[in-house]
C-alpha cells in the first residue's frame, strides 16, 4: 500500500508533458527579472519549443498508456487527444502574441509563463481520473487565465474583464467543489470509476438525491467553464475586455479541457444516472445554441460576436454530450479540435486588424479587407466558412458528426433545432464576409500593418488545420472513435 505512494519512473514519464511545461514556466519566472528588454522574444521562442516538446512527450507517453500516481492520473487515448489539443492551442496562442505584446508594449516573460501554467492546468484536467485532481487542474488553469485576462494592467476594460472572470469563475468553482465534497461523502471516494461502481451498487440509502444534487453542482462549475447556458453570461464581457490572443486562448484551451472533464465525469461517474441529467444537457444545449446565435445577430463588436458564437458552439458540443454515446464523445472530441483551429484563426485576424490599443473592433472595421490584404481576408474566409459549417472545412464535419451522433441517440428534435440554429448562424458570419469583400476599405483596413512571420504562421497553420480536418477527417476521427470509450 505505502510502496505505491512512491511514483515509479514509468509514472513520472506519464506526467512528462506537464513536467516539461512546469519547468520551463518556472524558469521564465526566475529569468524574467534577470534578462533585459532586448531578449523579449526569447520567451516566445522557448514557449514554442517547450510546447512542441510537451506535445511530442504527450504523443510519446501514449505508447505506454496507463494510470499514474495511485490512479489519480490516467493516460489514455482520450487524455492524449485533449493534451495535444490544448498544447496545440497554446502554440497557436503564442504565435500571434509576439506581435500583440510588441504592439501593446507589454512584458513578455510573465505572459508566457502564465500561458504555460494555464496549459499545465489544462493538461492535468484532461489527464485526471479523480475529482480532486480535476479540481486542482481546473484551478491551475483558471488562476493563470484570470491574470492573463487582465494582463494589460492599465487597460480599464481588461481590468474589468479580469475581475468579472475571477469573481464569477471562483464562484462557479466553489459550486463544483461542493459537488465533489458531496460525492466524496456519498460514495467515500473521488475516483471516477469507484464513484460509478458505488452509484451502480445501490448501497447508498437516501443518497440518490444527493448524487443528483452533486451532479447538478458539478454541472454548474463545468457549464460555466464551457460557457454553456445558463452559465454563459460572463463570456461576452470577458472576451471583449481580455487581450485578443488571450480571448482566443480562453475560447479554445480552457473550454476544450473543460469539455474533456465534462465528458469524462458525466460519462464515467454519472453514467448510471444518465437518464436523469440528459434532459438538463438537452435544455442547456438548446439554450446555448439559441441564445448564442440570436444574440450574435445584433452584435457590432467583433469580439463580443465571436464570444456569442463560441457560446453557440458550446451548445453544439453539449448536443454531443446529450447523445451519451461513444459516437457522441468522438464527435465532441473532433469538434473541439476543429473549433480550436477555426476560432483561434478568426481571433488572430481580429488581433491583427484591431491595431494598437485594439481600436478597430467593430464589424464595420473589416470593410475592404479583401482589397487591402487579400491573403488575410482569404484565410479569415476559411475560418468563417468553417464556423458556418460549409463542407470541406473542419466545422462542417464537426457539426455533421455531432448531429449524426444525436440522431443515433434519437435526439430528433434537438437535431432539427440545432440544424435550424446553424442556419441562423450563417447570417452573422456572412456579415463579416460581406464587409470584407463588398465594402470600400475603411480606416481600419487602410491602416493595417503587414503580416509579421509569427502572425502569418498563426493564420496559415489554423487554416491548414481547418482544411485538413475538412478533407481528411478520418485521421482525427479514427483516433477519437477509438479513444472515446470510458467504461469498458
Amino acid at each position, binding site marked *: 500500500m505505502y510502496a505505491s505512494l512512491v511514483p515509479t519512473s514509468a509514472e513520472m514519464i506519464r506526467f512528462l508533458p506537464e513536467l516539461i511545461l512546469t519547468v520551463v514556466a518556472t524558469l521564465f519566472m526566475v529569468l524574467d527579472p534577470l534578462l533585459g528588454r532586448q531578449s523579449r522574444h526569447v520567451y516566445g521562442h522557448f514557449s514554442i519549443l517547450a510546447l512542441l516538446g510537451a506535445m511530442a512527450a504527450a504523443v510519446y507517453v501514449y505508447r505506454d498508456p496507463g494510470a499514474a500516481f495511485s490512479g489519480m492520473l490516467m493516460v489514455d487515448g482520450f487524455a492524449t487527444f485533449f493534451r495535444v489539443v490544448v498544447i496545440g492551442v497554446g502554440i497557436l496562442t503564442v504565435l500571434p502574441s509576439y506581435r500583440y505584446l510588441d504592439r501593446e508594449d507589454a512584458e513578455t516573460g510573465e505572459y508566457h509563463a502564465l500561458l504555460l501554467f494555464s496549459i499545465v492546468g489544462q493538461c492535468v484536467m484532461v489527464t485526471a481520473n479523480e475529482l*480532486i485532481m480535476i479540481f486542482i487542474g481546473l484551478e491551475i488553469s483558471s488562476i493563470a487565465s484570470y491574470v492573463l485576462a487582465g494582463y494589460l494592467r492599465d487597460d480599464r476594460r481588461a481590468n474589468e474583464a479580469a475581475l468579472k472572470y475571477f469573481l464569477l469563475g471562483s464562484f462557479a468553482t466553489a459550486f463544483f467543489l461542493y459537488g465533489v465534497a458531496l460525492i466524496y461523502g456519498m460514495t467515500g471516494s473521488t475516483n471516477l470509476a469507484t464513484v460509478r461502481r458505488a452509484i451502480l451498487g445501490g448501497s447508498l440509502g437516501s443518497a440518490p438525491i444527493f448524487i443528483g444534487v452533486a451532479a447538478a453542482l458539478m454541472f454548474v462549475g463545468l457549464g460555466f467553464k464551457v460557457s454553456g447556458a445558463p452559465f454563459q453570461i460572463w463570456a461576452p464581457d470577458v472576451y471583449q475586455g481580455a487581450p485578443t490572443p488571450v480571448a482566443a486562448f480562453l475560447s479554445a484551451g480552457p473550454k476544450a479541457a473543460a469539455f474533456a472533464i465534462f465528458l469524462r465525469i458525466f460519462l464515467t461517474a454519472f453514467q448510471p444516472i444518465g437518464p436523469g441529467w440528459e434532459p438538463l444537457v438537452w435544455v442547456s444545449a438548446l439554450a446555448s445554441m439559441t441564445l448564442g446565435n440570436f444574440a450574435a445577430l445584433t452584435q457590432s463588436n467583433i469580439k463580443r460576436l465571436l464570444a456569442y458564437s463560441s457560446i453557440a458552439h458550446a451548445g453544439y458540443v453539449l448536443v454531443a454530450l446529450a447523445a451519451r454515446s461513444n459516437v457522441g464523445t468522438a464527435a465532441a472530441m473532433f469538434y473541439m479540435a476543429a473549433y480550436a483551429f477555426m476560432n483561434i484563426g478568426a481571433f488572430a485576424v481580429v488581433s491583427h486588424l484591431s491595431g494598437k490599443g485594439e481600436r478597430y473592433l467593430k464589424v464595420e472595421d473589416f470593410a475592404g479587407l479583401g482589397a487591402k490584404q487579400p491573403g488575410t481576408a482569404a484565410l479569415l474566409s476559411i475560418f468563417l466558412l468553417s464556423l458556418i459549417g460549409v463542407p470541406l472545412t473542419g466545422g462542417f464535419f464537426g457539426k455533421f458528426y455531432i448531429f449524426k451522433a444525436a440522431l443515433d441517440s434519437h435526439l430528433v428534435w434537438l437535431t432539427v433545432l440545432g440544424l435550424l440554429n446553424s442556419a441562423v448562424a450563417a447570417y452573422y458570419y456572412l456579415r463579416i464576409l460581406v464587409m470584407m469583400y463588398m465594402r470600400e476599405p475603411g480606416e481600419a483596413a487602410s491602416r493595417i500593418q503587414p503580416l509579421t512571420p509569427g502572425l502569418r504562421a498563426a493564420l496559415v497553420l489554423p487554416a491548414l488545420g481547418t482544411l485538413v480536418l475538412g478533407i481528411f477527417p478520418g485521421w482525427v476521427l479514427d483516433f477519437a472513435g477509438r479513444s472515446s470509450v470510458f467504461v469498458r
Partner: protein
Amino acid sequence: MNAVPLSWYLTLSGVLFTLGAAGFLFRRNIITVFMSIELMLNAVNLSFISFSYAFRRVDGQIFTFFVMVVAAAEAAVGLAIILTVFKNRNTLNIDDLNSMKDEYQPAQPEEASETAPVSVP
C-alpha cells in the same frame, strides 16, 4: 464526540455555503464579495472534514489542505486583480464595473458606455 451527529455538520456546511452565495449576490464591496467566495470554499472544507471524520479516514482532510492551498493562490491573484481595478477606477463598488455589456441603442442613448457606440445595421 458522538454528541454531534454528522448531519449537523453537513447542515452547517450547507448554511455557510448558502450564506457565502448570498453574500456574493447582495454585498457591493468587491473585497467582501471575494470573502464570500472564501466562505463558500471553507464551507466545502467543513464538509470534507466531517465526511472524513465520519469515515475514520484521512483523505478528506488532505483534500482540505489542497483546497486551502488553492484558495490561498486564488486570494493572491484575486487581491492583485482587485488592486489594479482600484488603481484604475478608484472604486471598490461592484456595481460600478459594468462598462462592458450588450448595447441597446435607440431607447436610452445616454446610457451607452464610453467605449463602444453602436449602430446595428
